[in-house]
């Protein structure tokens, strides 16, 4: 039997990373602070998960300033979108096979 987990993306194993990606695929971009508010996580926690996604090249990071305050924008990359869709399809398949 084919391993149903072969397309299971390790990067999305963590719930916060999965949520970050969900936000970025349906929005043009999201800023660090609004993302933090939305997901209700701490600065350090969010930053480490964003770093992990950046390392996979699933997200693109544009650093900027809003006056003097740092204002970083995050975009879903093409690879990130593809990986997310693949992950969703795998989830769907897993749920379907377990229901039947």
């Amino acid at each position, binding site marked *: 039997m084919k391993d149903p987990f072969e397309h299971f993306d390790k990067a999305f194993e963590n*719930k916060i990373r*999965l949520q970050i990606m*969900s936000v970025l695929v349906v929005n043009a971009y*999201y800023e660090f602070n609004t993302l933090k508010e939305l997901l209700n996580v701490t600065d350090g926690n969010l930053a480490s998960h964003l770093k992990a996604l950046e390392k996979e090249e699933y997200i693109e990071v544009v650093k900027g300033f809003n006056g003097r305050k740092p204002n970083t924008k995050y975009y879903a990359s093409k690879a990130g979108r593809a990986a997310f869709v693949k992950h969703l399809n795998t*989830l769907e398949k897993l*749920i379907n096979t377990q229901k039947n």
Partner: protein
Amino acid sequence: MAKDSAFENDLASIRNIMERSTKFISLSGLSGVLAGIFALAGSVVAYFLIYYPNSPFGFRFYYVNEQLILSYLFLTAGIVLACSLAAGVVLTIRKAKRSGLNYWDKNARRLFINMSLPLVAGGIFIIVLVSRGYFGIVAPASLLFYGLALLNASNFTLTDVRYLGICEIVLGLLCAILPGYGLIFWATGFGVLHIVYGTLMHSKYDK
């Protein structure tokens, strides 16, 4: 089995976060009901100013053009608008705070801008035409522009707003076809529809 529900939890959380990150979902249903009640009260006042003692369903053979009555009508409309906006803002902030959400986030601002643009354009359009003496434009144009504003806003908030917008547009067009019944259409669109919509939304989301 435990794994199964974990996957479904993942999907549910994806869905929820996508919705919350793109839409402002704290709109209060109750404020719709209040806006409807204010609009109906305003319509009753307008009825006494324009039609009394005739039936509001009867066709008018005279025009509303006395300066005094006109200024009373505008005053009434202004009060209705101010009360409805105040109720909407207060109740929506209360609802957002209760569910622990930010009431002035990115999506609230997008909703505000996308709703305001057609409304302000419509408002200016109506004022310009009224100043030229086209009083008949007020009821159909306010319904139409409000419907278009809602249709536009529905992309940034609860999708149900879309249906309210379509109903207002249909009413506005009917109102344009049947001149002389402006007040009835206006009371239906801003009064009755708001109450119906607000009640539905309150039972669907405000629990």
